[in-house]
């Protein structure tokens, strides 16, 4: 186990009757890392978080925190900070008392509590509101109180379960930046759960994509977005073009022929039926097939085009299949109805596992 290793989850399994909420999940986090668990509803995100917090007892597998196995440690001794989706602020306490709660429980001296609460209030920008009751706060302010309350006792790890789910779009985006900033100031090792891929992209150092209780892919936002490894991840990340077809060996390497007839060269050695993902900005459009060089070019028809500032977005038709393309060469324009040829560099074609 590495020096800066804070969390180590090994082969976690949790079943609810016939539902497998966690299916052999392993995950590790280093000190100061911001990891986002991304997945659709029911993929096991909360179950994973609540297992780490100690509210769900896994059927098998181990959880280590700072090198210590915590499977049998009760939640109140784990030193894990949790922000629940409902926030779970204590309605009968003021802002100050909410934040001071974990310190009072730890029997810290009064002055020390005051000092710490004031410092954390400053970090989350809530100074001056300490006497307010919770119902006198806005949604964003409540969010901050919940985060302050968990940060104030300096937990080994901070767990956030869809903390922004209840906020409207604008406030949500503000809080995403805010949580990142707080993270940079405090340096807390943070594990956040969301089903919003944009949120994951904005906030994470590393994204863990979950599906049906299993980890589908782990990587930086850039990796997950640009190099999805499975059909599920590509679809979930909203990759523009996902095509079904067959790969086979060919003189120059691997050739993929999509069901619609689109031919693509792959730089991976794969064979058989499957899917590929191509981002819109990686589709190259040509007037004549020769422009594609040695790469296969497939005939397509321009359906629509949209000028969007520094790029043009095209919708193309290849034998009835819609292909989306983004062209940054705005000096060269294709008209709707025009016949063109499309190709794609092999390194930009992602072979997807199912």
């Amino acid at each position, binding site marked *: 186990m590495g020096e800066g290793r804070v969390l180590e989850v090994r082969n976690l399994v949790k079943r609810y009757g016939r539902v497998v909420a966690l299916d052999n999940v392993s995950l590790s986090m280093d000190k100061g890392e911001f990891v986002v668990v991304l997945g659709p509803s029911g993929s096991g995100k909360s179950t994973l978080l609540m297992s780490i917090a100690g509210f769900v007892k896994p059927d098998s597998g181990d959880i280590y925190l700072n090198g210590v196995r915590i499977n049998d440690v009760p939640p*109140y001794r*784990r030193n894990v900070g949790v922000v629940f989706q409902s926030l779970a602020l*204590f*309605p*009968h306490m003021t802002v100050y008392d909410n934040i001071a709660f974990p310190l009072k429980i730890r029997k810290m001296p009064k002055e020390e509590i005051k000092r710490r609460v004031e410092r954390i209030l400053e970090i989350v920008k809530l100074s001056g509101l300490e006497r307010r009751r919770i119902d006198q706060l806005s949604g964003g302010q409540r969010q901050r109180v919940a985060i302050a309350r968990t940060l104030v006792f300096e937990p080994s790890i901070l767990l956030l379960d869809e903390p922004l789910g209840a906020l409207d779009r604008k406030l949500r985006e503000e809080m995403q930046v805010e949580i990142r900033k707080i993270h940079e100031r405090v340096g807390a090792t943070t594990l956040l759960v969301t089903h919003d891929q944009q949120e994951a992209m904005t906030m994470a150092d590393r994204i863990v994509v979950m599906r049906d209780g299993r980890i589908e892919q782990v990587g930086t936002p850039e990796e997950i977005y640009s190099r999805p490894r499975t059909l599920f991840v590509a679809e979930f990340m909203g990759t523009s073009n996902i095509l079904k077809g067959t790969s086979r060996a060919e003189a120059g390497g691997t050739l993929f022929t999509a069901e619609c007839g689109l031919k693509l060269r792959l730089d991976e050695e794969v064979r058989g039926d499957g899917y590929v993902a191509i981002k819109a900005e990686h589709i190259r459009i040509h007037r004549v097939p020769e422009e594609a060089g040695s790469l296969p070019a497939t005939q397509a028809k321009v359906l629509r085009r949209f000028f969007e500032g520094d790029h043009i977005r095209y919708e193309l038709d290849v034998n009835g299949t819609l292909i989306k393309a983004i062209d940054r060469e705005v000096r060269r324009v294709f008209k709707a109805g025009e016949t063109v040829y499309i190709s794609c560099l092999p390194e930009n074609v992602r072979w997807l596992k199912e």
Partner: protein
Amino acid sequence: MPWLRRILIAGIVALFILPNIIIVTASFTESEVITFPPRGLTLKWYPEALTSDWFLKGLVNSLIAAGFCTLLSIPVGVFAAYALLRMRIRFRDIIQVYLLLPFTVPLIVQGVSLLFVYARTGLVGNILGVGFALMEINIPFMIWSVTSAVNAMDPNLENASKSLGAEEIQTFLYVTLPSLMPGVLSGALLMFILGLNEFITSLILVTIDTQTLPVALYTKIRTTISPSIAAASTVYILLALVTIYVLDKVVGLKNYLR
């Protein structure tokens, strides 16, 4: 049609408080028997009622019985409601029905059964026995009140408390209980007022020495129709109003009875 609405509201109000107004006004009569409208205007029945033995004893007994019943009902109600909702208990459904039983068994039968038990255990003539009886017959109100508070509570509140470092007991004392307080207080208020007013079961269980105010009033009215009874009733009404007022001031009922 605002006038129609006003008439309706006035009608409803009159229906509810008119009998009370009659008894209150009747207490000011100068005549020797209760009359309405009152003849003349005097306050002389008040000192007479307030200093009379039957009234004072009844009042004290009622306060003790209702107070004891309320005190008992708090732990019983909180535990019953919380345990039934949050703990895994066998025969939960049966217990839940059983807790509502006091409402389905006529009060008179309850009184008789309790009298039987008290007679065996020597509790007849003990005012605390009356208090216990009041608790037993009215406890569903407390349980309902606390149950709605438990249901309204965010279940993650207790988990949050634990993740912040509070053990089970600390969590219950510092987080669960305060969150249930609104329900406990409105339940306690109901228990106290119901205890103060309860008549049928009390009638069966009390002796001369442990007569509660309603029983004392009833006994009195059968022998005399002196306006001092109206005066005593007025004080009784005031007592109930004061209870509500004080509790409102202390705990801010508006926030809780929503």
